[in-house]
């Protein structure tokens, strides 16, 4: 569990350029949750996730991991980073080894594990992101965009994190590649019980997969709740440069045209189900014509 208590982070503190990137945040990330973190560019998302795994230290306030202050003197932050794994944007740019197995072994090697243990973990991580044994010896540079992305995520998974933070893992991928990555992340959450914090600009992705959405603006959270609750506030999201998923606007349009439906569907399947509840109403409309 991660607890953030009244945390602030200021860039260029003490100068005229000082910016409060994180502004008095208090929140808790319980074990096993699948969270979507959304906010416009520059809202503070990336700064926030770096605070969580100790890459940067809050200017004031605290970040606790399993009850311990990660910024306390003597706390092993290096070790923390294997528990709270962070996958940066475009992580495939960080692939560098001659074959993907060796590349994925890099993380656990840095943790000081034996060659054999590293190999074991790397294999497991690659299998869990959908590679098969025959891929292990391939050069990372011969992989497709989506495969590279998955190999890079495996590199973090091989450290067996309890919490996995992904910063826009689907940016630039085609729809199928995007779905594959999100399915895989969802699977890690369900079967390996890894806590997931997904930073995303796609409201559709977030709506479909996560159980909780945190909305960031100007360094703090303006909304935090279940997807249906958050997306009910479409106007508030638009004010901060975001939007509700398209399906929300479609349902609202149908309602505004007089169909008495609930507008909280998060996926097109849910929307179809809701609309079909009003089948007789729709058929009556037709016969009127």
């Amino acid at each position, binding site marked *: 569990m991660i607890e953030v208590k009244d945390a602030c982070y200021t860039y260029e503190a003490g100068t005229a350029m000082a910016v409060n990137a994180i502004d008095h945040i208090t929140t808790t990330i319980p074990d096993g949750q699948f969270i979507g973190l959304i*906010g*416009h*560019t*520059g809202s503070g998302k990336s700064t926030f996730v770096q605070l969580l795994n100790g890459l940067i230290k809050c200017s004031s306030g605290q970040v606790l991991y399993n009850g311990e202050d990660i910024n306390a003197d003597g706390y092993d932050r290096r070790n923390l980073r294997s528990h709270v794994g962070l996958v940066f944007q475009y992580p495939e740019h960080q692939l560098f080894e001659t074959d993907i197995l060796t590349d994925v072994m890099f993380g656990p090697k840095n943790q000081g594990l034996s060659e054999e243990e590293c190999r074991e973990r790397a294999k497991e991580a690659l299998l869990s992101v959908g590679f098969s044994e025959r891929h292990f010896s391939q050069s990372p540079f011969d992989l*497709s*965009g*989506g495969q590279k992305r998955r190999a890079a995520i495996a590199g973090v998974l091989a450290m067996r994190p309890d919490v996995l933070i992904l910063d826009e893992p689907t*940016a*630039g*991928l*085609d*729809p*199928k*590649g*995007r779905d594959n990555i999100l399915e895989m992340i969802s699977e890690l959450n369900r079967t390996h019980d890894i806590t997931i914090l997904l930073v995303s*600009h796609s*409201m*559709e992705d977030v709506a479909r997969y996560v159980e909780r959405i945190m909305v960031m603006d100007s360094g703090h959270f303006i909304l935090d709740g279940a997807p249906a609750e958050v997306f009910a506030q*479409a*106007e508030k999201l*638009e004010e901060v*440069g*975001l*939007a*509700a*998923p*398209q*399906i929300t*606007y*479609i349902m*609202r*349009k*149908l309602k*505004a*045209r*007089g*169909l008495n439906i609930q*507008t909280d569907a998060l996926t*097109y*399947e849910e*929307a*179809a189900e809701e*609309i*079909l509840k009003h*089948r007789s109403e*729709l058929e009556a*409309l*037709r016969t009127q*014509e």
Partner: protein
Amino acid sequence: MIQIRNLIHDYLRRDEEGNVEGSQRAVDHVDLDVHAGEFIAILGHNGSGKSTLAKHINALLYPTEGTVTVDGMDTTDDQYLWKIRQEAGMVFQNPDNQIIGQVVEEDVGFGPENMGVPTEEIWERVNESLRIVQIEHLRKKSPNRLSGGQKQRVSIAGVIAMHPKCIIMDEPTAMLDPSGRKEVIRAARALNAVEGITVILITHYMEEAIYADRVFVMDQGKIAMQGTPREVFSDVERMKKLRLDVPQVTLLADALRQKGLDLPAGILTADELADALGLKPQNKPRKTESTDQKDTI
């Protein structure tokens, strides 16, 4: 405007001595015509060849076989190189790699300055370009202080300032948040509708393609599908097989149709769905909730 005839492009793999080891065909016998003033969308999965194809249009790549002509100029003819790059401008995915000026207006003026346009005209062009993408208020700002959508519009303004006939945008919205995406697509549509500039938009967001006059779908270096957005998005199955998607409203209409509702294929907007369901526009529209997010892109 643009004629592509039997285009083939092979990427060569070389060993350490520079000898050719093998090749990979990225574009495979493509024929494509783009007419002046059209808005074209090119879709296709990662590695399908769309960027390779696009780079031929402004002579960043040359055909292995076949020809590409822009406004009658063959891209392999060196004497036309700069003329072609001026007429067919390109905007890439990452705005940070395209902006060089310290101040927005300086960055936008860089292209025309490089072309040797007289100073006074450069400023006219800068003003005009900033106006078209609606960032006049940012002209004195430093580009690195801007949002992603604003930066990308600076890149577009920089291309407009060269007075191109055509702009090729290679996933210009891939790295942007929802409002940034909207800003860029709105700019692209204005460019096309108001200024009459031919736009070729490469994207992974299916919703952005619904405004196009024609959509081309690439797969394995070939054009797998083409037609109006409605024609292309009507075939949900085929699009999914090509690792793509269709707009959410099209998926929803498709799901309803499968459950027996009588709806046409290829519904592209919420309004079309409402119409097809027989829902009449209300006399007194309730203005309390926003319903038009999609339509205002």
